[in-house]
C-alpha cells in the first residue's frame, strides 16, 4: 500500500501565500524567511524526526551509491575494496540483468498506462450521479487497504489451473480449457500485469477524483449549453483542469510500479524462466541470496539513473505540451 496524497496535493504547495508569515505569532514573525535563524525552538521540535531521516534514509541512499563502486559481499572476512567501475562494466555484459530490466519496463508501462486509463474512466463515472455508485466507490478503495501479499495470494487462487475461477469460467463459456496462466511462458507477464493494474487502481482513481473537483462547473455547463458533445467537453474543459494531477499521478505510479516487489514475489517469484523477474526481484536475489552487495547496489544505481532520465523526458515533454 502506498500513500498517495502527495500526488494531488503537491500541486497547491508552491503557491501558499507568503503574506501569512507576517502574522506569525510572537517574536518569530516573518523572520525565518530572511535567512535569519528562527531560534532554537524549531530545531528542538524538528530534531527527533530529522535524525532518523538522515540516519536511515538520506544516509543509506548515499551509502548505496558508494557501495556500487566496491566489491562488498555478505559474510566476507577480508575488507571491502574500491573497485571503481568494475561492477558497471560487468553489468553491461550481464544479459540476465538487461532481460530483467526489459521485463521491468514492460511491467511498469504495462501496468501504469491501463491503470491510468481505467482510473480516469472510473473517476469520471464516480463523479456522475449513478445508482450503485457507493458500491463502486467502496470496492474501488478496498485494494488500497489490502496487504500486497494477500492480493497476490488472492489472484493465485483466481488463476489456479484446476480450482481457479478464471479457467472454470472459460470452460463454462466454451472458450477452451484455460491454461496455467502463471506458469505459461507467454501468459505469465500479462497475467501478473492484470494483478498490478487491479492493485493500484484506488490510488489513481482517488487522485483523479480529487482532480475532477478542479473542473470549473460553469465552464462545463456553458460548453454543454453550446452543444459540445461529451468528448469535446472532456477535451476542452475537463482535461485541462485535471492535467497537472494526471501528470503527477501517472509519473508517481510509474515509479511505484517499478519499485513493486511483493505482488510478483508471491505470484510467480520471477518465474517461469525469468519471464516475470522484475529488477527488484533480481537485485533482491543478487543481494540476499548470493550475497553480492556491491553488484546489486550497482544494479540499483543503473535502474535509478535510467528511470530518472525517462521520467525527466516524460515530464519535460508533457510540460512543454502544456505551454503550446
Amino acid at each position, binding site marked *: *500500500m502506498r*500513500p498517495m*496524497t*502527495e500526488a*494531488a*496535493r503537491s500541486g497547491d504547495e508552491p*503557491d501558499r501565500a507568503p503574506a*501569512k508569515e507576517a502574522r*506569525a*505569532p510572537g517574536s*518569530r514573525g516573518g523572520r525565518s524567511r530572511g535567512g535569519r535563524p528562527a531560534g532554537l*525552538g*524549531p530545531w528542538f*521540535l*524538528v530534531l527527533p524526526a*530529522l535524525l*532518523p531521516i538522515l540516519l536511515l*534514509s538520506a544516509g543509506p*541512499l548515499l551509502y*548505496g551509491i558508494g557501495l556500487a563502486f566496491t566489491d562488498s559481499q555478505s559474510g566476507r572476512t577480508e575488507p571491502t575494496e574500491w573497485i571503481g567501475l568494475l561492477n558497471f562494466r560487468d553489468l553491461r555484459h550481464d544479459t540476465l540483468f538487461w532481460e530483467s530490466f526489459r521485463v521491468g519496463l514492460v511491467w511498469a508501462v504495462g501496468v501504469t498506462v491501463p491503470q491510468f486509463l*481505467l482510473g480516469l*474512466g472510473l473517476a469520471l*463515472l464516480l463523479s456522475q*450521479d*449513478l445508482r450503485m455508485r457507493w458500491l*463502486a466507490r467502496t*470496492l*474501488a*478503495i478496498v485494494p488500497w*487497504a*489490502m*496487504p500486497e*501479499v*494477500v492480493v497476490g*495470494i*488472492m*489472484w*493465485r*487462487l483466481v488463476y489456479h489451473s484446476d480450482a481457479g475461477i478464471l479457467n*472454470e469460467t472459460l*470452460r463454462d463459456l466454451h472458450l477452451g480449457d484455460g491454461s496455467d496462466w502463471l506458469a505459461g511462458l507467454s501468459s505469465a507477464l500479462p497475467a501478473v500485469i492484470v494483478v498490478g493494474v487491479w492493485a493500484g*487502481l484506488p490510488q489513481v482513481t*482517488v487522485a483523479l477524483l*480529487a482532480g475532477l*473537483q478542479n473542473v470549473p*462547473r460553469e465552464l462545463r455547463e456553458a460548453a*454543454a449549453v453550446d452543444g459540445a458533445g461529451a468528448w469535446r467537453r472532456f477535451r476542452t474543459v475537463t482535461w485541462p483542469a485535471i492535467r497537472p*494531477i494526471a501528470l503527477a499521478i501517472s509519473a508517481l505510479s510509474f515509479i511505484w510500479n517499478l*519499485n513493486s*516487489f*511483493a505482488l510478483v*514475489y508471491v505470484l510467480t*517469484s520471477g518465474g517461469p524462466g525469468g519471464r516475470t523477474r522484475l529488477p527488484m526481484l533480481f537485485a*533482491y536475489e543478487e*543481494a540476499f541470496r548470493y550475497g553480492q*552487495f556491491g553488484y*546489486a*547496489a550497482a544494479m*540499483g544505481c543503473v535502474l*535509478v539513473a535510467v528511470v530518472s532520465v525517462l521520467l525527466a523526458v516524460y515530464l519535460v515533454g508533457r510540460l512543454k505540451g502544456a505551454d503550446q
Partner: protein
Amino acid sequence: MKRAGPGPTDHPTDHPTPGHSRGRAALSRPSAALSRRRAALSRRRAGVPRRGRRRAARAGQYLALLGYLVFLAFPLLWLVSTAFKPPTELATLHPTWLPERPTFDNFRRAFDEQPLLRAAGNSLLTAGSAAAISVLIATPMAYVMARHRSALSRAATGWVVVSQAFPFVLVIIPLFLILKEFRLIDEPAGLVLVYVVWSLPFALWMLAGYVRAVPRELEEAAAVDGAGRLRTLVSVTAPLLAPGIVATALFTFITAWNEFFFALVLLKTPEKQTMPVVLTHFIGTEGVADLGPLAAAALLATLPSLVLFALIQRRITGGLLAGAVKH
C-alpha cells in the same frame, strides 16, 4: 463546490425525467431557475433524438460501471468463497462460485499449519510501535513545517516529495548493513525503525495539513491571554489536532501491518516474522499450497487493515480533497 470524492455523502440521484433532462441537467446540477432556462434553450436547439442519445449514454455509463464492479469484486468474492470451501470441493475440477457446504474448518487448519497468532502478535507489536513513534516525532516537525516558512521546512517538504520516488533496491542493502552494525538485524526493533523512517514522509504530509487547518488566530488569542508557548501548544493546538493525529497513526499502522519487503529481508527467525511473511509460508517451495487454509489465513490477515481503513478512509480522502480544492 460539488464533492466528488469517495465520501459517503451521495447526492440524491437525479435521473432523466421528461422536461428536465434535455438540458443535460444530470451532468451538472445548476440552480432550478438556471436549469429551467437551460432546458428551454436546449429544447429549442435539439429535437427529440437527443433524448434517445442521452438514454443510450446513460445505459453505456451503467454498463461501464457494471464492468468495473465485476473486475473489482470478483477476486474478492473468490477469496471469500475459497476460504469457506471444504477440501472435497476444492479438489474438484469444476469449482463452483459459492461453497455448497460452507465450513469454518479452513480457519482452524490455518492456525494448525502456521503460527498465525504469533505472527499477528509480531505484526501488532511492530506496526503499533511504528505508528506510535512516527506520530510522536512527526507531529512537532509537521508543526514547524506548517507554521514556519524557513529553508528547513522547504527542504522537508521537498524531501517528502522526493521520498516517494525512493528506489528501494538502492536503499535496502545499505540499510541492512547499517542495522547489522547496530545488531538490529532479525530484531523487531530494527524493523520498527525502518517503518518509522519509511512512513515519516506521509505522516509529515498529513499532519502538516491538519496543523494548517488549525486557525492561527486561536493560538494568537491564547498568547494574548498570557498563555506561554508550551501551554498554547498543549491546551489549544493539541486537542484540535487529535483527530488528525489518530488518523495519521492508523494509516501508519495499516502501512506497516501490510508491509512485506523489509520484513522479508530484515527478519530471519520464523518466530519473529510478521503476518505477510508468514502468509507466504503457506505456499510451498514448488508453488503448491493447501488452498483452503491459505485463503482463510489471507482473509484473516486482511481484516484489521480493512476495518481500520474503513474508519479513516473519509479522513484520508477528505484531507486529499480539501488539499485539492484549496488553491
